């Protein structure tokens, strides 16, 4: 009896481990490649472990692009972007989940439909808007277009909906206004979901370069991912250097993830509600 339990566990872990390996491999490859020489990085067929690991690529990458300045800009953009987005998103998700007003679901459905329009089409007009607003080549241009996200609102609304209404009622009885309920009850309870969304958002901000290369011209205002372009040009890509750059770029996100992971996973489990 106990053995089958044990076997089940082993199979479970095995599947997870294989899956984890498959998911993890590209990341591993990024690191490995960044430690190779140019010759080895381009070798066909590729070698798994570098014959001789070298940190030259990192040295080179750090020398080539003003990573420190980019880093500063990235941090500013990400912090502002995530903060404002989360604020907007929380308010909107709350209105769309717990407040009741006629047309709510229709308006929301229309908004969701807006997600279906390809980004490429939006960019054309948004670019003009940014220029018209006089925000071209400013850090603000990297922030405001993304602070109202239907996508995150959609996700968060879903999570807010799963918080029982009786807690809303309970807070109202206790005299809390909608605003107080939102910040004192709903947000703390939905913290795991919020952290998840904030993390996704942070990663998206951090890595968003398509837009930033469009609206940013001056080195002063450029963000980290821009540093990666230093390794791609018309004659080809220096993968080993690119990977070193990429590793440097994503490092903060990994650290962020490792910090946030705990709150994603250990959700506030329910209890205190009967029936």
């Amino acid at each position, binding site marked *: 009896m106990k053995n089958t339990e044990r076997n089940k566990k082993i199979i479970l872990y095995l599947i997870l481990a294989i899956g984890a390996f498959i998911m993890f491999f590209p990341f591993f490859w990024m690191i490995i490649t960044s430690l190779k020489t140019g010759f080895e990085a381009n070798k066909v067929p590729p070698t798994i472990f570098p014959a001789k690991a070298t940190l030259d690529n990192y040295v080179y990458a750090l020398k080539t692009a003003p990573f420190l300045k980019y880093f500063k800009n990235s941090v500013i953009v990400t912090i502002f972007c995530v903060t404002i987005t989360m604020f907007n998103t929380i308010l909107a998700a709350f209105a769309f989940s717990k407040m009741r007003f006629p047309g709510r679901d229709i308006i929301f459905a229309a908004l969701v439909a807006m997600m279906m329009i390809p980004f490429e089409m939006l960019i054309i007009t948004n670019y003009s808007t940014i220029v018209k607003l006089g925000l071209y080549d400013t850090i603000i241009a990297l922030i405001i277009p993304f602070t109202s996200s239907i996508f995150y609102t959609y996700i968060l609304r879903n999570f807010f909906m799963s918080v029982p209404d009786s807690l809303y009622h309970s807070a109202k009885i*206790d005299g809390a206004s909608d605003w107080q309920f939102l910040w004192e009850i709903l947000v703390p309870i939905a913290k795991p979901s919020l952290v998840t969304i904030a993390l996704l958002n942070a990663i998206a901000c951090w890595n968003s370069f398509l837009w930033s290369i469009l609206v940013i011209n001056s080195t002063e205002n450029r963000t980290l991912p821009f540093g990666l372009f230093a390794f791609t040009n018309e004659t080809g890509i220096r993968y080993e250097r690119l990977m070193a750059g990429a590793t440097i770029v994503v490092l903060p996100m990994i650290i962020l993830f490792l910090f946030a992971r705990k709150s994603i996973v250990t959700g506030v489990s329910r209890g205190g509600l009967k029936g």
Partner: protein
Amino acid sequence: MRVKVKNLTKRFGEVTAVNSLTAEFESGKLIALLGPSGCGKTTMLNMLSGILPVTEGQIFFDEKDVTDLTPDKREVGLVFQNYALYPHMTVLENICFPLKIKKVSKAERIERAKEFAKMVHIEEYLNRKPKELSGGQQQRVAIARALVKNPKLLLLDEPLSNLDAKLRVEMREEIRRIQRESGVTTFFVTHDQEEASAISDYIMLMKLGEMQQYDKTRNLYNQPANLFVADFIGSPTINQLHGVYTKGGIKVDGDNQIIKTNHKWQVEEGSRVVLASRAEAITFNDKDDVKTKVVESYLSGKDTLVNLKIGSYNLRGYIDATKPIKIGDNLNIGFKTEGVFLFDELTGERYYE
């Protein structure tokens, strides 16, 4: 605060949970809400608190129409039937929350919260999360949370259902005390009649969303408005003899006697009626002439509870334990004036004298 409801109605789709209820509740009283499961007690409280918007009708607090006021503006305290504690807060934080909202200073709210925690005997658990508490402990937290903020109207939805007898008595006395001292109008849902009569000034009895009777507690027992009330209130259940009103008396089905009592019912001859009598309203005196047969008998303290058969119906009464009773004995009984009522069989309405 005086509470008045006018044509209060709540429908959930097809279901009518509360049906056109009109009543006025005196200020500072404790009103017990009684009724079978699903009769609309919780719905009623939820409408009073503002959680549920009403379908029709109005609610007044004192003279003010609060029908459209949101719960946070009504200043009510509510113990939810399912507690609805905040899962992410500790017990202390849960109790403090209403005070925090009221911007009571931190020191003061903790002090007050602790005081109420002590009152409901949960002072040891202040730092636990709700899910780390037993059912009864959670319920007590909910009580403390509702009481701590000095509400203008207190609504308690079966607040003691998960407590043991001793604690239950203690809690209800505490609630009663606080209610008296603060004079807060209080609605108290309970399924326990003993509890209801022990603490309430008034009882409102509901059935299928309709109010059956709203009256002083003892009046429900002594002056039931209809058969349902008479039947619902009291233990053992009131005796019911169905029959026809003939010749100034009741001819019980399956029996030939015409039972006469010393009431002068305003009832037409030939009506189908129900003669209802409390067990203690049955007399066993020498002059009594209604013939019955003993079916069962139990000793109950100084008395014997006898189960008697008359026609197709049973009847319970208390007889002195010293009197020897055997099953199958014939026993003559009589009816007192008090505790004996006549109802229309069909509508359940009471015939008065």
